[in-house]
Structures are given as C-alpha cells and as structure tokens.
C-alpha cells in the first residue's frame, strides 16, 4: 500500500482514537468522582469542553514559541500515533510504522514535551516553569525502568520493531511479555504510571499549588489543541504499553478492551495513592522500579 493511499486510513484511525480517548477520559472522570462519592460530570463532557474551546472567539498569545507550543505538543501525540502500528496484521492500520521502530516512538515523546515546555516557557508564567522543571525532572526517573524493560524485550525477541514484538507475543496469553518476563512488565507498568501523569505522579500539574502548571497560560484554541492531544496521547500510550507487554491487538475490539484496562491501571493507582513530591517520586523510581528493571534483564538473560 502506498504512503498516500494510507493517509485516509491514518486519518480514520486518528479520528477513532481521539474520540475513544475523549470517551475514556469522560468515563474515568466519572469513575473517580464516584470513588470520591460525587456524581461527576457527564461522560460526554470532554466533547463539550472541546467544542467550547475550539469555538471561543477571544484568544490571546504571548509570542511565536507560545503559538507553536501546542502545535509541537499535538505533533508529539499525533507523531507517536503515526509511527505506531495499531492493529496487528492490518495493513490499513499500521500507520507509518515503516519509518522507524520502537526507539523512534520513545524519542518522539520528547518532541511534544519539549515543544510544550518551550511554548509554556514563553508564556512567562512562573508556574509554567515550575511545572516543566518538575515534569522534566520526574520524567528522567520515569524513563529509567522503562528503558530497562524495553532492553529486556529487545533481548528477548531480538528486535526493536514494535510489529515484530507484537508478532512474537501472538499465540495465546502465555506468550505475552506479562508472563514471559513479569519483571519487565512490572517495571514498564510502574513507568506507565508516571508517563500518564496521574496521581501519585501528578505534581507537574498539581492543581492546588501551581494551578495546572505548564498549560496555565493557554486559552481557547490553544487549550483545545492541548486537550485534543491529551485525549489522544494517553490512549496512544496505553496502546503502546499494550503492544509492549500485553500482546497487542489484532482487531479494534481487542484494542479497545486492552487499552482500557491498561489505562484503568493508572486510574486505579492514582485514586488510591496520594501525590508525591518531585524529589520523592524521583527517588521512588530509582528504587523498586529500577531494581525490577534490572531484574527484568537478568531474568531474560539467565533464566
């Protein structure tokens, strides 16, 4: 299939995932409200928010980088999506994964992060800078166990291609990395908590102390783009982890179910545990998750 004939399918996949992401956001807001003995917002509230923000007529910005920040951010989310094979075995939904492998996806995460950080930086709000400095610092620690997990998977399957990693996990639930290397999965899932930015690792946007942190200055269309990205990015990340540890998905239904469960893990932990300070979360990641990561490699190497 040519690159250009692929574009409609890519757009279709993008559309599905954004809407699915919004849906999941709505559902989880609802669930966490119920846990807190509140009723919570309607499940369709994210769509309403988005439409409202996109439709706003008054909009302000602080400069070119501020303007480009959301573009970078959404570019980051869309980029990961573009380079990720969604449905295993489907040529229509393999996106542009021919351009690069797992490492590309890993490093493309930074594309959005950095762009956003710069955009927020130009906003000139100190809370933005505080949020970013926390986010970046925390992210270094979050990535470490994940790096170990990915190396362990690469050793296990001798590939860095996401499609091949998924392919290797086909043929039954016991072929998933979850069972073939539980340590890698554990390390990876702990990293996932941080990557999702949910409690206890949500000090980056801690609403009570630095009102929502980095995006504090973004409004109307800018914020809408960021919200779009948040919906997309979180679900794409869930799909990435699903591909890495839980055998990927061979059809859309499987994808929805598995990614929902992965996503739910972050919500579950976040609802139970309170927020860490940044230095606490960094040290936390450098203890148990790091050890799990090392064990993952030792496990695959020697057992």
């Amino acid at each position, binding site marked *: 299939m040519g690159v250009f004939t692929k574009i409609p399918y890519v757009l279709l996949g993008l559309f599905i995932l954004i809407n699915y992401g919004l849906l999941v956001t709505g559902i989880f807001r609802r669930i966490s409200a119920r846990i807190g003995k509140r009723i919570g917002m309607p499940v369709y509230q994210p769509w309403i928010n988005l439409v409202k923000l996109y439709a706003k007529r008054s909009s302000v910005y602080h400069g070119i980088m501020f303007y480009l920040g959301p573009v970078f951010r959404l570019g980051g989310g869309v980029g990961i999506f573009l380079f990720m094979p969604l449905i295993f075995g489907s040529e229509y939904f393999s996106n542009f994964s021919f351009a690069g492998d797992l490492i590309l996806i890993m490093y493309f995460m930074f594309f959005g992060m950095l762009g956003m950080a710069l955009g927020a930086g130009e906003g000139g709000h100190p809370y933005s800078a505080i949020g970013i400095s926390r986010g970046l610092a925390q992210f270094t620690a979050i990535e470490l166990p994940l790096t170990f997990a990915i190396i362990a998977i690469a050793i296990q399957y001798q590939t860095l291609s996401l499609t091949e990693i998924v392919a290797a996990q086909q043929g039954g639930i016991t072929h998933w990395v979850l069972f073939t290397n539980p340590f890698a999965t554990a390390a990876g899932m702990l990293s996932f908590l941080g990557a999702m930015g949910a409690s206890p690792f949500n000090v980056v946007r801690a609403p009570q102390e630095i009102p929502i942190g980095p995006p504090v200055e973004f409004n109307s269309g800018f914020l809408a783009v960021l919200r779009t990205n948040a919906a997309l990015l979180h679900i794409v990340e869930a799909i990435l982890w699903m591909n890495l540890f839980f055998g990927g998905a061979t059809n859309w239904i499987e994808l929805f179910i598995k990614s929902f469960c992965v996503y739910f893990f972050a919500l579950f932990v976040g609802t139970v545990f309170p927020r860490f300070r940044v230095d606490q979360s960094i040290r936390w990641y450098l203890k148990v998750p790091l050890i799990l990561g090392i064990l993952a*490699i030792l496990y695959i190497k020697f057992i």
Partner: protein
Amino acid sequence: MVNPIHIVSISLGVAFFLGFLRKANHNLTSTIMLLAFAANAFISAQWLWAFIYSNTEPFYIFTAGFRPPYSISLLMGRNEAIFTFLINIAGLLSGIFMLKTYLRHGVYAMMAFLGLILGLNIIILTRDLFNFFVFMEVSSIATAGMIILIKNVKSVSAGFKYIVASSLISILLLLGIVFIYYFGGSLNIDDMITNHLLVSKGAEVAVFLVLMSILLELKPFPANGWALDVYEGSLPGIGALLSATSATAVYFVLNKLLAFANPYWYNVVAVVGMISFIGSNLLGIKQKNAQRLLGYSSVGQIGLLLVILGFSNTLGEKFEYIAFGVLISHYLAKSGLFWLAGIVKQDNIKNWAALQKKPIFLFFMGVFLFTLAGFPPFPSFFAKWQLIMELSTAGMYAWVIGILFGSFLEAVYLFRWFGYAMKGEHNDLPMFELPWHKILPVVIGVLSVFGISYISKDWLPGGTSLNFIPLYFIAFMYLIDFAPAKVKNTIVILVITYYSWLVIPNYYNTDIIRLIFSSIFLIGAILTLIPGYLKKGSRKGFYPAALLMFSGLIGLVESTNIYQFFFSWELMTIGSYLLIIRGKYSMPHAFKYLLFSVGGAYFMLMGFGMAHAGQASLSFDILRTGVPYSSIIFLLIAIGFMTKLASLGFHIWLPGAYGESEADVAPMVSSILINAGVFGFIILMTHIPDANIGYFNIPYMLGWIGVISALVGNIMASLQEDARKLVAYSSIGVMGYVLFGMAMMSHLGWLTAITYTINHFLFKGLLFLAIGGVILRTKTFNMYEMGGLIKKMPWSFIAVLIGIITLAGIPPLSGYAGKWLFYNAIVLKGWYIQGAFIMFAGIIAFLYCFRLIYAIFLGQLKDEHRNIKEASVWFIIPQYIIIITIMLFSAFPQYVLNPIGNWLSQYFPNNALVWNGSLATSSLGYWNAFNIMMIVMGMFVVLLLFLLLVNRGSKKVGQFDIVYAAERPERPETTHMAYNLYAHYNKAIGFLITPWITKSWDNISEWVNTIANHTRKIYNGNGQAYALHILIYIVIAYLIINGGLF
C-alpha cells in the same frame, strides 16, 4: 686557526691590563672586556666550525714545551669547542646584560668576571687534574666576588655560604687529587684512562672524592641549600651565569673524568641525577621567589642531564644528541629567564604580571618556559622524546616514570608562574626599564632557541618528516601581530580555506575517518574564526595561538607515525592552552588544563615508548596486539586521550577552561579540540582492539567510565547557573557517550561514537557560538539574569533550539540517529545495564537543554535588556552554516554513515547496518531518516495550519498579561522562574555528584604541596647546616657506593 691557548692569554692579558686602567673611563674598559669575550667566542667558534665542517683532528696544546706528565696539556676537541663556545657566548651576553653593573663597579668586577670565564674555559680544556683544581678555585673565587656585586644581606650571606660550601668541596677535591697522584702516579687524565692507573681499592676512594666533589659542584639535591641561596641572593645576571656557564662546564668535566672511573660510577651519576631531578622539582612547587624558583629548575635540569650522562652507554650514539638537546635548552632558557628576572625586577612570581605592560616579553618568557618544559618545536622536545624512546628500548621503565614525573612537577611550577605573568593583576605594578643592553641578550636568546630548534629536528630519525610549514606561517602571523584583527582574520581564514582545499579532497574516497576529522578540524576552524571579525584592535597573540592549535589538530590527522602524532599533540596543547588562558578569569582553569594535558601527554609518551621498544619503526603499526605489554600500552595511551575527552576522573579542568574562555574560543576548544581525543582513540583502538590486565578488560572499564562521565556530566550541567558552564559540562556528558561507544568495540558502537562526534561538533559549536553571541550582548553569564530574549534575538533562539533538539536526540534531527544506533548497539553488544544508564543520562540532558533555552530566551524579559540587539551577525553567520549542515545530515545521514559503516566493516564485520536508500536496517530495528523528516514536517505544517484556522484573530498580549491569581507580577526578576530551577532534582539525586573526584585531586595537590613544604625546611638558611648537608651527603654516598649497592 687561532690557537686555543689564546683564550687563556686573551682573558688573562685583558684581566691584568684592565688593572692598569682603573682610572680610565669604564665605557672603555667594559668594551675591552666584551671584546675579550667576543675574541674568545670567535676562537671557539672557529674550532667548532672546523670540527663540524672539515673533520679536523682534536688539537693538543702542551704548555712549557714539555709533554705530560711533566707539563700541563690542554685539548681542543669537538666537544671542547662546543662547550667553550657556549661558555664564551654566555660570557659575552652576560657581560652585555650586566653592562650597567660593570660600569658602576669598575674594573675589579670586570677582572673577576674575566677570571670566572677563563677558569671555566680552562677546566673544559685541561687534561690535567691539578690544573683543573686550580682553575676550579679561580672560578669559585671569582664567582664569590661576583655574588656580592650587589650589596644586601641576602647576597652577602649567599656569598659567605658559597665560600663555605665551595671550600669544603675544594678540600675534598684536593684530597682526592692527592690520593689519585699517590695511587696513579700521574695527574694527566689521558694517562689515567689509557694506562688504567686507578684500579686499586685505594684509588677507588680517591676517585670517589674527586667525582663526588664534582657532583657536589653540580648542586645535587638535597645538598644544595647554599646554591639555592646563591641563585636567590645574587644579581639575576649572575644567576644566568651560574646556571648557564658554571653548571655547563662542570657537567662537561664530569663527563671527562668519568672516563677513568669504574663503570659503576655511571649508575651513581644517574641515581644522583634522578634524586636531584625529582626532589628539586618537587620543592620548586612551593616556591614563590622567581630567582629561587629558577634555581630549583636549574638544579632539576642538571639532575636530568646527570641521568642522561649516567645512561650514556645505554643511549649509545644518541647520547650526544639527547644531552645536547636538554643542555642547550636549559642553557638558553635558563639564562633567558634569569635575564628576564633582571629586567622585570620582581622577586615574587605573582608580580611578574608586570610583563603584561610589554607583551613581547611575555612571548619571550613563554618561549623560554615552553623550551624548558620540553614542548615542540624546541630542542628539548626532540631530546626528551628520544630519551624516552631509548630508555624504553632498554626496558628501563622505572627511569622513564621518574623522568616524566619530575618533568611534570617542573611543568607545575613553570606554568603556574607563566599563568601569573599572563593573567595576574598588573595595574599597580611599576613599569620596568628597558635599556638596550638588557634587551639584546634576551632577543639573541630567543632567536637562538628558534634557530637551534630548526636545526636540531633534522638530526633526529624521522625528524625531517615533521611538517614545519604551519609553524612558519604561525611565525609570520606573529610578525604581523600588530595588524588589525580583521585583516589577520581574513588572512587566516583564506589560508585555512586553501589548506582545506589541499587536504580534505585527498581523503575523499580514500579515508573516511580522516575525511571527517580533517573536515571537523579545518572547516570548524573557519567557522569559529568568523566571529573574530567582531574584534576591534589587533587582538594580539590570538592568531598564533589559534593557529598552533589548529595546525596541531590537522597534524594529528595527517600524521602517519607516533612521532608526528605526538609532535602535533603537543603543538595542539600549547595552542589550546594559550587560547584558553586568554579568558578574563581563565588563569587557574588554563593551568589545570595544561597540567592535565601535560600529564596525559606523558602517559601517552610512555605508552609510545613501550610500543616502540624493540621495534625500529615509528609507524602506528607498532601499536598492535601481540606486542609485549600491549594492554599496558593501551591503558597508558588511553589515559592520555581521556584527559582530552575529559572523561570522569580527568574532567575537572573542563568546565572552567571552556566556560571562562572568550566567546569565540569556547566553540573552538569545546566543539573542535575535544575531538582530538576521539581521533586518538580511533587510532589506538583500531590498532589494539582488545586489552586485558589480569581479569580486567580495559575497554569494559572505559565503558563504565563513559557511563559515569555521561551521568555526572549531564547532572552537573543541569545544575549550573552559568550558561557557559552548562554547555561545558554537557561536553563531559557527550564525550562520555562517545567513550562508551568506542569502548563497545563493535560495529554499531563505533558508528554511534562517530555519529555522536559529528553531532557534538555541530551542536556544541552551534550552542557555544549562540551563547557566546548572546553573552556579549547581555554582559552576564548567569541564565537567571537573562530571560525573554526570544523577542530580541530570534535568530539566536532558533540556533539554540536546533542545537538542543539535536543534542537531546529528538527526531527528526540527527541527534536521533545517535540514540537509535545506541539502543541497537547496546542490545547487540550485551552491555544492558550500563547501556540503560547511558540512555538515562541522555534523558537527563533534557533538563539542561530546557534550562538553557528557557532561562535565556523564554520567560520574562528584564528591564535592562529592553533595548538589547540581536547577537552580532558575525556570530550568527557560522551558526546558520552549522544549522544547514545539521539539516542536511539529518535528512541524508546515509551519505555519511554508510561510508563509515563500510570502513568499520574491515575492523568489525558483524552487525553492520544495511542501507537501502534512506532506510537503515540493523538486525534489531530500522530507521528511515528522510521519511521521518518528511512525515514530521508534513504533520507539523498541517497542525500549524489547523491551529491558525482555529485561532484566527488571536491577539498578542504584553509581557505581564498573565494569569496571576488575585495578584500581579512584581518585577521580571521575581517572575522569571529560573534561579535554581532544578532544586528538587538536586535534592533527589544530588548525592550522585558529590565532587569527590575534585576533592581527591585537591588532596593530591595538597599532599604534594605539603611534602614540598616540609622537605624544603631542610634549607634553613644556615651556612653551617648547608656544610653539614654536604658532609652527610658524602658520607651516605660513600656508605652506599662502597657498601656494594653499585
């Protein structure tokens, strides 16, 4: 030809004649004296010429018409001609230098001076022991008289101590001579040698006394307190004389007399020399008085000469070359420095900053110091190289270590002194007088150094292969140093462009590695020279230094053997040191840099020596596995390169050296110079691919050092407030990756390392140029004092943005290539744990990348920067050339990486990348740079258009229009959140960067200083104690020598 006896007759005659002219005009008498020296020098020169060019036979002079043993005979041979020439020239120049002193003190001083030089001439020429004694006494008495030419407590007590010591030595000498006559029945040296007169046990004692007293005349450590006081207390001109003439003459005598001694005496001489060399240089470290420091250095150099003499048999035919190289360097440099001391008239080495008032004198001082320290292109460099090679060949590694250690100690105090002179505060210091008669000898000294350097390189095997052409150009640039900087900049850029045109195409299709490195060095040079157009005035001294560095660098690439390599390496060191020290507060950092460079170079030199041992060739091929000790050779040379790469443990010089240097020097050193280490590693590791010492695999250890360097470098960079230091620490980090990649010893590992090297050259040049340009405008280095500059300096902002995206390895720019290769490499190599940590280090890089761009360009603009302009266009131009290069490399990496891969396959055939157009496939994954670039760009444009559509009519608001809950921002300073941005990170993992390495280096330095300080307490200034030292020295020496140790 004039009979050498006339040296005696002229000196004596003039000395007596002057006695009649007491009342005459001193101008006349001093002229007569100088003429006498000139005549003497002429006689020696004439003989020297004859010996060199027409192979004249040695010439004997028999006095009083009898033959020995009934008369005294003198010999004028080739060596005698050289040495008397040196003595007489030194006499002449010294006479000129001290003209004022002689004019003031009249004929008696002149007579003493003539007596001194006469005595020295005769002890060189004589073949009679007693005659030697007599003229030794003559010169001693004359010297004592000369010491007290200046009347103060120091000089009088120095003169007194000198008399005490030299009388003591004379007594021994005389006793020895008496015994020798008793046992041998002759006083003629030739007699003793040819007839082996001194073989009995008793004669050994006699020989002991004679040789020991001569050794003591050479002021061996620690029985040399008197000599140091003399150096310190007498006029600088006298210091020059003592150091250049007396020591030289006595050294010659020792060589002459060793011929009749038992061969073990050579070992004694070597041991005495080594103790002197190390001990004296160690004590020199604590010395603050310039003349005394020179005294220590003199003693040290004589010690080295003794070592060389002691091994004259081992060195064989190279002995003369080596001894001459060291001796002439010492002779010229030491007298030059003493003369400079006489000009600048500052006791404390810190006050030599006064030289800055006349920068040409700094140049003179630099020439002398670099000569002493054995840097190229000076004769001592060639001699030291040869010495190390020969000693290594003989397997005498302990001695090699001793010599290099002593040389290192010497470099410590010499270059601390030079640092003070170059950068010390000089406004309060008085301007020194510059009479012609003081300048002339110094200038002649400097010219002679260069002249002899030029000649001496040809005497060495392989010396003619050295490329001196760049040096001529540098000399030319120094001659036109007065010209405006813009003119010189243009000349230099044109010449380097032309040179690039000559050199780089040669490597195209033949040697991809040399193609890459010559491009980095030469094109990098051009790019970093462009900002030089900004400078007003003539920018004195900059261009010769920069060119020295660049010619050293390109010399590395062009070198085909270890000798050329080391020569270029040292040139590069001098040039970069002189560049780095130009920064306003660079003095201590440049000093550290130099020490690490010198230390590293000595390790390397030792490695080269070991490799060369037993092999005739000098080519790189002698470095190979299978050579004895190849692992140790590997380690030694690797340490040399690691000092340049600033790997952890050897990194402490880097932040200051790079951070404090001038705005356009920083990119030169950080993005270009540092690659010399990488190139070195490539050379080393392609020849010795594996090295194990015991159970330790050295590349494996290097890998871990790389990891820790990367981690610590990046964490440190994140915690800096000073933009330049941040970028400098980042170099430590990136070079950690490179070292790690090289250490992997695999195809992809090396490909990663080389990719990182190219990327680092590009982004570090870009960042340092951008930051340099900004700092020149903001006048502050602290990032938190900047902020919001994107609006004022958009061009610089874009440059930094591209720089950090490349640095951080974010796709689609070329930094990602490095990351992708790294992942593949570490999985394939099996270095999982360290690999994961190095990726972790890579993520930490985000912290400082963000800090750099945010704190400077984003956030709140400060009031004082409201009218600031964009950085100078001369900084912007090279940045954008680099940006274009980055873009091309990012989109089409295959044109660079594919040939590198092909080249690598000859060393590491496994796991090579397969290229299919722009698609690279490893056995693990794949990467299509061009596609990624296109996809990302397309996506970005679409999203941007989307946002523009959604946000049409968006309004730009002012700086303080921000959401500030129920408050309003006070000032930009309080709103710009940039100071201590990563406080929490420091709290979390700051313990990882406890500076225990810096502390341990500080401790080592502290110990050395303490040892030096305590040891020098034996020099208590008491003449009796000094006499006692001499006696104890003799007794101990006797016990050891006759105790059978030798």
